[in-house]
Structures are given as C-alpha cells and as structure tokens.
C-alpha cells in the first residue's frame, strides 16, 4: 500500500516538475509585460525538436542542446521584436491574441521544417529505474527535478544579484517608475522573452526522453504550464513550481485513488477552489487597482 502511494508520489513529482518547468516561462514574461504568452508551449516544442534534429544530424548531444537553446532564444527575441514590440501600446488582450497567432505560425513552420512524427531523445543517464521502498523512479525524472531546482536557484541569483535581473524585477513592480530611474524597459521586455524562451527550451529538452516530442507537443504542456503558473500566483517563480507540483501530484493521486478519466478534472477543480479563496493564486501579489 505504501509502495503504491510512493509510486503515485513519484509519478506526480515527475509530471509536476514538467509542468513547473513549463510554467516558469509564463511567469517571467508576465512579470515584464503582464502578457500571457500563449506561444510559451512552442518554445518547449522548438527546444525538443531542434535537439532531436541536431542529434539526428550527428551533432553530439551536449552541443545539440546548447544550439537548440540558442535557436529557441532567437525565436523568443524575434517574437518580441517583430510581434510584441510593434504592438506594445495595444491592450493586453490584443497582445494575447498576437501570441496565439504566433503559436499557430510557429507550429505551421515546425510541421514543414521538421515533420509531424513523434521523436525521442535517449535518457541522459540510462533507463534503469531506481527502486525505493517498492516504488520505482526513472533517472530522467531526477534530471527533470534537478534542472527545475537549478533553474529556480539560477533565477533567484539573476533577479537579486545582477543589474539586468533587478531591472526586470523593478519593471514588473512599476514600469513607469523603472523608466524614470533609467531602466530601459524595452530591453527588459526583449530579455524577458529571451529568458523564457531559454527556460522553455531547457524544459522541452529535458522532458523529451520522457514524453517524446512532435510539432504539437507545446499545446498541452503550455496549457498545463499556464495552469501551474496561475495556481502558484503569476509572476512568482516559486509559485509556478509549487503550482506545477500540486497539479502533477493531484493528477497522479486522482488517477491512483479515484478515477483516471477524471484526473485532469480533479486538478482543475483544485485550481478553481484555490482561486475562489485566494484570488491571486498561492503566492501572487494582490495588487490594488489604480483608478
């Protein structure tokens, strides 16, 4: 009995870390612009697919990963420069529709540039599961969890210790004030897209050995990542991680103890319930509205 419970926990943590990694990117762009980037899932897809195709060309995995992350960041910069920046004065809703258009556009390119088949990457450290008290955990799950932790620590350092990070943080609190003290908020926005593209790509690469990838991978992961980010409280990196883990573990527990058909519904009911009592998510700022 304990073994099954532990197995559900492992499943939940594996899936939850995947959602968390996907959710982090939403938070960063939201911080800089208050825009929900619906093309975030496509960053995840591009990271995974680019790595797969580079590996297929004979590029060694570490180099392929690096190149894929760079390529995804370029896409992120381009998205900001050519689609978001020109419409900077538009309403947030309009900007969201632009990112939806971008996601359709990027999927359209991906299906022609690559193909519609599913692809895989080999697990980074083999596929011999660890057995812990009768439950099993794949090494790749540890990679996902580990990368999530590293990303969190790295983001903490970036936002609190570097000038660029502090500028981004300042912009998220008050754009006008940040501008007044000399922060180039345009550059901050560009950086936020690059950074979240990087996070998306890293996530997409490290989860591909578990979930596989194809040109449509980003849709579902983007949705779950968004849910995780909102549950945790938008703009809070730690919140996105906690949100992702809650959604992942709720799904696994629901599948294990209740009904696998309704496991996704259970996760969304939990999110709704939390929002009813904490309207800004678990760790969100409950800002006052300016009149």
């Amino acid at each position, binding site marked *: 009995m304990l073994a099954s419970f532990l197995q559900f926990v492992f499943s939940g943590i594996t899936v939850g870390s995947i959602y968390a990694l996907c959710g982090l990117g939403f938070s960063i762009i939201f911080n800089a612009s208050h825009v929900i980037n619906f093309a975030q899932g496509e960053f995840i897809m591009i990271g995974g697919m680019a790595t797969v195709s580079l590996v297929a060309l004979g590029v060694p995995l570490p180099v392929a990963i690096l190149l894929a992350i760079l390529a995804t960041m370029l896409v992120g910069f381009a998205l900001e420069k050519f689609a978001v920046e020109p419409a900077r004065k538009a*309403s947030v809703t309009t900007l969201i529709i*632009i990112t939806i258009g971008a996601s359709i556009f990027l999927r*359209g390119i991906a299906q022609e540039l690559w193909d519609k088949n599913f692809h895989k990457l080999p697990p980074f450290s083999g596929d011999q599961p660890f057995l812990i008290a009768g439950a099993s955990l794949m090494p790749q799950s540890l990679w996902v969890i580990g990368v999530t932790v590293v990303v969190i620590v790295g983001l903490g350092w970036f936002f609190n210790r570097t000038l660029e990070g502090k500028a981004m943080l300042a912009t998220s609190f008050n754009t006008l004030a940040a501008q007044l003290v000399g922060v180039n908020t345009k550059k901050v926005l560009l950086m936020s897209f690059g950074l979240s593209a990087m996070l998306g790509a890293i996530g997409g690469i490290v989860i591909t050995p578990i979930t596989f990838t194809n040109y449509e991978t980003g849709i579902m992961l983007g949705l779950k990542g968004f849910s995780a980010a*909102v549950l945790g409280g938008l703009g809070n990196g730690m919140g996105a991680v906690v949100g992702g883990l809650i959604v992942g573990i709720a799904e696994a527990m629901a599948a294990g103890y209740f009904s696998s058909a309704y496991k*996704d519904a259970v996760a969304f009911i939990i999110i709704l319930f939390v929002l009813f009592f904490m309207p800004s998510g678990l760790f969100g700022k409950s800002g006052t509205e300016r009149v």
Partner: protein
Amino acid sequence: MFRNERMIGLAVLAVIIAILPQFLPNNYYYDVAIQAGFNAIVCVGLNLLIGYAGQISLGHAGFFGLGAYASAILCTRYGWPPILALLAGALVVGVLAFVLARPILKLKGHYLAMATLGIGIIISIVLNTEAQITGGPDGISAGPFSIGGYTIKTEQTWYWVVGGTLLVAIWLANNLVDSPVGRALRAVNGSEVGAEVVGVDTARYKVLVFVVSAVFASVAGSLFAHYLPQITPAKADFFKSIEFVTMVVFGGMASTFGSLVGAVFLSALPQVLTVFEDYEAMILGAIMMGTMIFMPRGLVPTLGSLLVRRRG
C-alpha cells in the same frame, strides 16, 4: 443618439443577410455562411462580456457545448421536442453561469481567464467521459430540428434560421448596451473602482452579462447540434473557447459589428486558405499576428475610424 445608429446598422445587416443568398452558388457556401453565423451569435454575446464588461472568458465553448449536448441528449435519448430542449439547455446553462458568476467574477484578468478555462475543460472532460449519456469522444447526433410538425431540412432554411437568430441576438445585445445597465457596464470596463465610487453595483452587472453571454452560447450550441450530423466534445473544448475569444478581439472589442466581422472572417478564412495546403497554419498565424499588430483595436474599429477620418 447611439440607439438610432445601432438600429440602422441592424437594418443594413438585415438587408445584407437577405441579399447574400444571391451570391451563394451552392450548399457548401451556405454551410460556410451558416457556421459563421453560429460563431457570430456566440461572439456577439461574448463581446458583451469581453468588450463592454472587460471580463475575459476562456470557457465559453463549455457553455456552447452544454447547450449542444442538452439538445442532443434530451432529443435523442428522451424524445423531447427540440425547442423545449433548447430552452431547457439555455435554462441549465443560465443557472450554472449564475451560480458560478459570483465567485468567478471576483477574480481579475488572467486569474479569471484561468478559472473560466478550468470550467470549460471540466465540462468537456465530463462530456468526453460519460459515454453512456453523451456518446463519448465519437459524439452524438441531435437529429433534425423540428417545430410544430415542420422540420428544417435544407441548408437554405438553416440559413434563414441562423440569420434571423443572429439579428435577434444583435438586437438584444444593442438593447443591453444602450440600457442603463449598458452604461454601467461601460463604466465597469473603464474603471471598476471608479464605477463603484459613483454607486454602480458592478458585481451585479457583471453577473448579468456573464449569464446573458453564456445563454447566447448555449442557444447557438443547441441549434448547431441540430444542424450538424454529429457533435463531439471537441465543440466544448479549450481550443474552441480560444477561437471565440480570438474572433471577438480580431473583429474589434466593444463593437457588436466587430464581433460579427471577426466571426465571419475567421470562419471563412480557413476555407480560403486550403489552397495553400501544407502552409495553411503558417499563413493563418501570420494573418492573425499581422492584423493585431497593425490594427490593435481590431478590424472594424480601426477600419471604421480610418474611413471616417478620410471622409472627414
């Protein structure tokens, strides 16, 4: 002053709907027009919420799907007359929206988007899973729409039914916009706190509009279920919800005719884009991005003010 112009717009639209069949060579073109009409009905309702009350909903396909399934289930499994099933569906959706509205509309911006998205997804999961009642992923048929012994059989008849329903929907929406409630709504969109300070019960109006827009979606869903040979849970899912919101914003928020144009344009566009075959998605995405970048207020308001400026 606003009122008259809206009525003239409505009359012009009625004339267009009446003339349009002259340019529809066959049932396929009717089909595109009909599907655009269904989407337009939903969008006119959704625009009240997004455009006037400033509240986003990523779950309206859930209400659309509930209406469709209420009709399909009540008609095929319980033999109800279609019009009663439609009304029952609208009632159920209305009550559900009313119950959900208070806690949900307390949320702001993206949290509201998340909550409505969650509700839509839960609805589509239930429709997908309860296969004994709903037919599961392969869907269910609602059968033809008949009333008082008369059955709608041809696309031509459906065209008039949808066109008429659309006119009624726009007329209702216009009335709501011009009523005291409507003025309060526009205040809500402007500044909620400000509106409350001058004594507008914003919460009550937001609830009202949420319910109205959900009922619009439900009625459109019910009719749609009778029009299509088969409806599936995909009609209630997240992607359909996103599609509705996109139509509203694309055409122009806070403009009833904008919603109409957005719905028509984005319903017909994929049919036109089939000539590009494999590049369909790429071009659709590029058109969406380009339009919103260069016309951030949406098609109709931007083009409208452009024309007025040129004339003036």
